[in-house]
């Protein structure tokens, strides 16, 4: 368990021994089959992986996940999925409202600083009641994840889905429907930013790929011929809402904010259950191709 990776063969071996690794390889297989990524992208990944795994000094704590993450980031293999599309309706991005996120996006100087609030719920009150969101937004604020990208879905589809739940369950439902395993504590406060079409006029929406998700996201590449991905529902482990990835988005006067509330319970998601849906032939075939590239 948890062997350090020193070459691609070992990397593949480590992948094969873990549920997440097998799922990751299977996802790459789907992406290739559906032309969401092409051979050039796979080759770039393989060679970057080979470069990392050839140097043990660079792998102080490396496991297959770390090696994959570093290869993807080194060669900017995220945000290259196909097909590309433009926004045809308002899009929504669900976020967790905590002190770290608020410090990054909001400026509460006029309200006595972030320490003047008793907790995330009080912050949600302020943001939601601000008639003009720009009064609380940090100047030049952008929305992004750890990587310079954002995951989005259609606002109307998400809202219609959430409307099936009572208010108290909306945050939990959003978490499950959008596969947001990172928002898994009982007291996580969620909200969503809504962007009209005009706010995304210069943004390309892409179908998410295994490289956008890396190996640490609950993710399943879409097996359908669609311009979007299909978020994995954490409750059912089945394809759920459409999702796209795009470059970081500016938060400004066009942006709206909506409170979703507090997550009520931890997710029941298990990697084992998702692993049961991987296809052995795809895992083997992608592994063989990567061995030839490193």
């Amino acid at each position, binding site marked *: 368990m948890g062997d350090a990776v020193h070459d691609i063969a070992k990397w593949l071996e480590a992948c094969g021994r873990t549920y997440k690794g097998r799922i990751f390889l299977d996802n790459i297989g789907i992406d290739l089959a559906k032309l969401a990524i092409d051979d050039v992208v796979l080759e770039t990944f393989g060679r970057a992986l080979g470069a990392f795994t050839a140097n043990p000094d660079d792998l102080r*704590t490396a496991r297959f*996940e770390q090696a994959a993450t570093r290869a993807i980031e080194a060669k900017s293999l995220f945000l290259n999925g196909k097909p590309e599309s433009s926004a045809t309706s308002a899009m929504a991005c669900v976020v967790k409202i905590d002190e770290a996120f608020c410090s990054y996006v909001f400026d509460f100087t006029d309200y*006595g600083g972030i320490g003047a609030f008793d907790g995330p719920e009080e912050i949600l009150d302020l943001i939601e009641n601000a008639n003009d969101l720009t009064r609380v937004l940090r100047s030049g604020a952008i929305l992004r994840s750890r990587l310079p990208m954002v995951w989005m879905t259609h606002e109307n589809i998400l809202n219609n889905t959430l409307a099936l739940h009572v208010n108290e369950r909306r945050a939990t439902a959003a978490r499950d429907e959008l596969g947001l395993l990172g928002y898994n504590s009982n007291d996580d406060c969620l909200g969503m930013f809504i962007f009209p079409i005009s706010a995304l006029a210069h943004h390309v929406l892409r179908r998410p790929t295994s490289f956008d998700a890396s190996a640490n996201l609950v993710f399943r590449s879409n097996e359908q011929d669609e311009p979007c991905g299909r978020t994995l529902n954490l409750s059912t482990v089945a394809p759920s809402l459409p999702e796209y990835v795009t470059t970081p988005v500016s938060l400004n006067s066009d942006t709206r904010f909506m409170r979703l509330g507090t997550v009520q319970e931890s997710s029941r998601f298990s990697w084992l259950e998702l692993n049961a849906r991987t296809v052995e032939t795809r895992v083997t075939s992608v592994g063989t191709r990567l061995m030839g590239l490193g």
Partner: protein
Amino acid sequence: MTNAISLEEDIMLATVAGPERLSDLLLDIMTGTRLPDGEKNQTPASIVLQLLRGEDLVAFRRKIEQAFAYGLDKWPLGALGAEHQGIIAATLLSHSSPSIASKVARKLAETSKRDAFFSPQNPYVDLLVECVLRHAGDADTKIAIVNIAKQEDWLRYVPSIFFRMANIDVGFCQFLIPEFIKACQNQLDRGHNGYIHAFDRSLNIEALRQITDTLTPQQSAAFDTLFLLRSRRFSPGSQIEYSENSDEGQNVRYSVYDKKHQVAFKPHHENAMAEAELQHLRDNRDEYLKELIDLGLKQERIEKELEMA
């Protein structure tokens, strides 16, 4: 087949191996090389915050804190970007042990790299100020933070510092009042009076009253203005003009003009002070009434004694 090793398990193993190994792992977490599950739409600081607040990790919190203290000596803090410095800030904030957090906060304030940490370009600077002030137990660290805050670019953070300290250290109030006034002025110029309301909510007024004797005339003038501004007369929506002038005697005078109510206040002017005192009387009517009654009874008794004599 085994399941993927979780980050929590990784931390447990590193904990057993000692603070050096654990601090290496923490650096990997902060730089994104080692991540927990599910980082979609999460900022780096949120990821670390979430991880270190995980219930499973409570037993290891102290070890993690020790590793942070250990790592701060050898991590290339200056080489880390603002994003990663923010992660450290968020992590500090998540700590519950005052002693170790104070140690780390002091290290941040005293290190030669502190300018990078406390730079306005650091998107998590508010958070960092909050957590340092919350955890820093010693006066030197607080003075270091205040000195940073007194730089011009830092004026916007003074209220946060002021609120955080006003309830704790009376001495620092004296230090901060003139800066706070400037920050209020800047804010009022922009049409906001949030500081005044926050001031109302959080200030330890009695602590402030105790320091009035030690104020310089300039600080005293600022102090008067602060209390005047605090008056509930300035409701949201009031259009307030605020100005600072020096007269020939080089005394600084602060003046406030409420456009909405067409009322001018000059705190150093007799009438304005009378107005402020009147307002204070109104606010403390019952207390003053009792004092007056006591005085009246005392006066009555003295007069009777004089008559008898």
